[in-house]
């Protein structure tokens, strides 16, 4: 990881990677969502509303993956003092918050025709809402630390402590069996028919590429801002 500690070396890889991730992500997502609307059969129980899964489930995964990324960046910053770790954490948070919000809103829209309610204080829904608030707290804290010229250690600690919510979200459907359905997809297999699930795998891959592109763009923006500030300071000193 320290091979990429040099921002110039990182940017050499990040510039083409941004374009590739964005291009592949947009193509894959567009195809997967169109396929989810037109090529898959309705579910025997949920009917047409099952198609909301193609946007809701990737958003949930990415909302959680974003915080896992923040936790990894936090460890990297606190233990190895990786110079890009704080930048990576700050860049990941807005994308993670966006996908957590998409998950909550589309879940609510899915809940109305399926459960007959927009919202329930169910374990999965509540822990996901907490994740969204954690993102907002992290964005505020990291931004304030950056403005004061801090290293972002407080935000890193917050990122680590907040990771406790990830297993809670994951196991919530087992611990509190209320409204949200149990796990349908895992590494061991799927309880959903392949004719319905295949666009989900493509849309998850597509949204992941888009997420990666958004994080890289934010990292590039942060690094350019640091460079700009350093140059302005140097110019003022001359």
């Amino acid at each position: 990881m320290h091979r990429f500690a040099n921002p110039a070396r990182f940017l050499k890889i990040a510039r083409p990677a941004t374009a590739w991730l964005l291009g592949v992500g947009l193509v894959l997502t567009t195809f997967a969502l169109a396929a989810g609307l037109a090529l898959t059969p309705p579910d025997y129980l949920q009917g047409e509303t099952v198609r909301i899964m193609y946007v809701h489930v990737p958003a949930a995964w990415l909302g959680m993956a974003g915080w896992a990324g923040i936790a990894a960046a936090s460890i990297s910053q606190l233990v190895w003092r990786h110079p890009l770790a704080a930048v990576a954490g700050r860049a990941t948070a807005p994308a993670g918050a966006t996908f957590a919000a998409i998950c909550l809103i589309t879940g609510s829209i899915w809940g109305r025709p399926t459960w007959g309610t927009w919202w329930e204080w169910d374990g999965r829904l509540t822990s996901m809402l907490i994740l969204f608030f954690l993102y907002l707290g992290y964005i505020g804290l990291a931004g304030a630390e950056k403005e004061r010229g801090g290293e972002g250690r407080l935000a890193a600690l917050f990122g680590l402590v907040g990771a406790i919510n990830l297993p809670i979200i994951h196991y919530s459907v087992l611990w509190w069996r209320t409204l949200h359905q149990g796990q349908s997809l895992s590494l061991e297999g799927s309880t959903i028919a392949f004719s319905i699930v295949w666009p989900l795998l493509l849309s998850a891959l597509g949204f992941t590429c888009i997420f990666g592109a958004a994080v890289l763009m934010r990292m590039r923006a942060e690094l350019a801002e640091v460079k700009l500030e350093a140059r302005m300071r140097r110019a003022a000193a001359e």
Partner: protein
Amino acid sequence: MNPWSFVMAAYAVALTATVGLLLWAYVSMRKAEAAADELKRK
């Protein structure tokens, strides 16, 4: 209740938020990189 109106609403929310995130990230990156390059040239 027409299920398609819920499906379309969910897709609209997801696409609007994703495109909004990408646009914001792209514009802020281009702005910051252009400002850094501009100062380098001076």
